[in-house]
């Protein structure tokens, strides 16, 4: 690839972000069956940025397509977007374009050739633009009364120019502002001169009222040759002074020399077509200016974007360093020995430092966490496309999209979720007739929900479809020899979960979206990578529910700290029901020697952590320790420990793998956390006790 890797990364990342926000805009608009002015501007802006970036990176197909879309939205915008009958088609074509872009980006990521052909899409766009123009013209004539009405009509044909002309048509005219001639030379071995020139133009565009450049067409290698030989000429009209222009140009990479001259009268170097266009320029000026303003507006909104991309590794080291600062701070505090000197000011300064560091820590911790909403929005798109394809009417309900999980989790969750939802749409939800026959509403519903429990993030996908067929699964499983015990011994749930076994797929025919032979086993495997689990349950005729459970590795946890002997533990607060000094009379031993405790009328088994974890310096007298009542989805019990130490918010760290060689059993430990004072605390995995 020509461009260097980091530039490519940034390009891919930014373009993906743009496409994502574009999709959200489209979804918001599709509900109203049209886009409002703001949304149209947004689409316009996104396409403009993608076009620029793609052209910069020499991805011509993407740039062309973005350009065509930009043109189309220019027309739509000038018509205010109201009363267009083409909206459904517009949505479809933009969605398809987004898919095309995403597809190409995916290829780029895999370093595959970007061979997607945008021609069919361009064709659709052309037709659509033609229809729109017909309509625009009609609209313009009916709106003759409005003084601006002539403007859109004037701009529209210009905007609909073929995609090859990347830069706006050269215009060169005399106005109030001075005009200049700029001559640039790039370093001999800088390569891609034409692309660099395009970059320069992008910068010049921001400051100039009008501009033109030679060579005019920057899309070809020939342009690069010409620039290499004769330099790159820019003519512009601007209110900025030469020094300012020069400052902007100086930022250009590989710039060898540049001169900025103000032009008085005619200059022979001005290309003929520009001279000729001088006359027309005056006429088109008003139209041009509106476009110019639009361009300026779009730059403003780019500046407003509040996000930057950061390498996750940097965040990791930042988090580590903040942890170290906290430790160092507490060391400073505890070592501050002033003897008999008064040190009030030190105390207050120390207090301030302490609260600032706490704040810093909170912020750093929250940076790595991202809400699952972006991931869930992707699913919205999938459901939309698939339900159209299958002629099913499906509503996707999203709950808890603000739930925050670690960046890594999102990456691993994406594919399994896609797969499950595909299955639900394809296999789960029945077609409208069947649904009516079964007495269900014609439109199906898929509910996608994320929530935090103490030790896990739980993502569920529930559909109200036909449910899994017990018999079909059993038949298939026995055909494939996947049954390990006799049918009568298996519970329904066990049978349903057979679908996660490798080589299982109940659908006979292969469809575009699901049933490509890779089955739910891939889902289980992917979730397994991040230490999670997936289960399925189903009720015939009512629907199916998939539950993905991801442990909180690297997530932030609110926990209660307690100790057993010299060992410190953290238990996720959500799992804690209560913590009390036990009433020794309430504790008894069952015939098998298990200790039980009676709490509020219920009996729970009592686990002495000192025995479970083999701690020798712990409290053994029941009267001297404490009892904690713990409940998870799976079980409820009590633990016996020494004493409580307060509540903390901690980042869960993985235990080092080597630790498995140092201990006979790490069951019941989910990870560890370093507290502000540098102490290591083990995090209790409630389900492992």
């Amino acid at each position, binding site marked *: 690839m020509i461009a260097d890797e980091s530039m490519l990364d940034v390009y891919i990342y930014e373009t993906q972000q743009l496409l994502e926000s574009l999709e959200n805009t489209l979804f918001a608009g599709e509900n109203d069956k049209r886009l409002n002015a703001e949304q149209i501007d947004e689409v316009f802006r996104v396409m403009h940025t993608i076009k620029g970036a793609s052209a910069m990176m020499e991805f011509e197909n993407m740039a062309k397509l973005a350009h065509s879309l930009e043109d189309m939205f220019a027309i739509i915008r000038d018509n205010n977007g109201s009363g267009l009958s083409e909206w459904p088609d517009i949505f479809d074509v933009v969605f398809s374009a987004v898919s095309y872009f995403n597809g190409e980006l995916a290829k780029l990521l895999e370093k595959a050739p970007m061979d997607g052909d945008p021609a069919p899409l361009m064709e659709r766009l052309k037709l659509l633009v033609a229809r729109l123009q017909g309509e625009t013209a009609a609209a313009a004539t009916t709106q003759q009364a409005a003084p601006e009405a002539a403007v859109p009509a004037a701009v529209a044909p210009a905007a609909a120019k073929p995609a090859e002309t990347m830069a706006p048509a050269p215009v060169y005219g005399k106005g109030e502002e001075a005009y200049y001639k700029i001559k640039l030379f790039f370093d001999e071995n800088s390569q891609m001169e034409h692309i660099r020139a395009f970059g320069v133009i992008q910068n010049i565009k921001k400051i100039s009222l009008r501009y033109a450049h030679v060579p005019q067409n920057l899309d070809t290698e020939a342009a690069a040759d010409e620039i290499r030989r004769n330099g790159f000429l820019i003519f512009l009209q601007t209110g900025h002074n030469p020094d300012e222009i020069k400052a902007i140009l100086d930022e250009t990479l590989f710039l060898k020399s540049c001169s900025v001259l103000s032009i008085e009268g005619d200059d022979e170097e001005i290309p003929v077509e520009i001279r000729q266009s001088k006359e027309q320029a005056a006429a088109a000026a008003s139209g041009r200016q509106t476009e110019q303003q639009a361009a300026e507006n779009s730059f403003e909104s780019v500046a407003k974007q509040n996000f930057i991309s950061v390498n996750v590794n940097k965040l990791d080291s930042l*988090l*580590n360093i903040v942890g170290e600062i906290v430790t160092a701070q507490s060391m400073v505090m505890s070592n501050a020995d002033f003897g008999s000197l008064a040190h009030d000011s030190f105390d207050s300064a120390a207090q301030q430092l302490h609260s600032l560091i706490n704040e810093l820590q909170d912020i750093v911790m929250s940076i790595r966490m991202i809400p699952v909403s972006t991931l869930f929005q992707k699913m919205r798109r999938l459901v939309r496309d698939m339900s159209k394809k299958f002629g099913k009417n499906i509503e996707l309900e999203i709950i808890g999209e603000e739930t925050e999980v670690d960046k890594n989790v999102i990456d691993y969750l994406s594919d399994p979720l896609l797969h499950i939802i595909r299955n639900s749409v394809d296999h789960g939800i029945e077609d409208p007739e069947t649904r009516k026959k079964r007495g269900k509403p014609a439109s199906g519903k898929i509910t996608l929900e994320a929530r935090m429990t103490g030790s896990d993030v739980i993502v569920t996908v529930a559909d109200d479809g036909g449910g899994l067929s017990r018999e079909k699964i059993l038949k298939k499983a026995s055909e494939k020899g996947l049954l390990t015990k006799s049918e009568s011994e298996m519970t329904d749930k066990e049978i349903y979960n057979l679908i996660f076994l490798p080589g299982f797929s109940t659908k006979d025919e292969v469809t575009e979206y699901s049933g490509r032979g890779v089955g739910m086993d891939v889902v289980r495997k992917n979730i397994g990578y991040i230490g999670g689990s997936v289960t399925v349950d189903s009720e015939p005729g009512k629907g199916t529910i998939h539950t993905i459970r991801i442990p909180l590795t690297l997530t932030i946890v609110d926990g209660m700290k307690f100790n057993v002997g010299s*060992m410190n533990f953290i238990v996720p607060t959500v799992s804690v029901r209560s913590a009390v000094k036990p009433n020794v009379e309430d504790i008894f031993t069952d015939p098998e020697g298990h200790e039980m405790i009676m709490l509020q009328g219920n009996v729970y088994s009592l686990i002495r952590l000192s025995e*479970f*974890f*083999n*701690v020798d310096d712990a409290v053994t007298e029941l009267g001297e320790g404490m009892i904690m009542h713990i409940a998870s989805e799976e079980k409820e019990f009590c633990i016996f420990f020494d004493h409580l130490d307060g509540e903390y918010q901690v980042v869960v760290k993985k235990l*080092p793998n080597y*630790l498995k060689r*140092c201990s006979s059993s790490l069951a019941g430990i989910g990870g560890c956390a370093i507290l502000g004072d540098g102490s290591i605390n083990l995090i209790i995995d409630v389900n492992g006790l």
Partner: protein
Amino acid sequence: MDDYLMETAVSDDMQEYLIFSVDTIDFGIDIGLVQEIIEIQPVSKIPNALPFCSGIINIRGTIVPVLDMRIKLGFPPREYDDRACIIVIMLESELVGAIVDSVQDVIHISAQELSDSPAVSGDHLNYTTKIACVDDKIRQILNVPAVFGIDDEA
């Protein structure tokens, strides 16, 4: 010319070893494995710890398991004094600490100075496969995979 060749030949199979002592014995470990040496510090215990594992420590935000070399190499346990150190080594891209009585020196040992360790019975024998005799002192070179148990899938 010949001298020059000789010299490069020698320095080619020279290797640097960190020399530390446990009980009365001097051991050597390939310096390439050693990440850092830190002074002894309080260790957090771990559940169901095997005897040789002292626990875990926090090195700038990384959790590092720490082994007690006295116990691992079969010596009687002893209170650590202020000469005791933790040698932090990189094993399978993770850090592991080893508590030793003291760290002595870093020395060059050439291949000629190394010999296979004699087959004597003893607890720590398969833990040292080579013996070096430098400046009239005997150093046993630690067989890191065996000591840290990364070749047996325990």
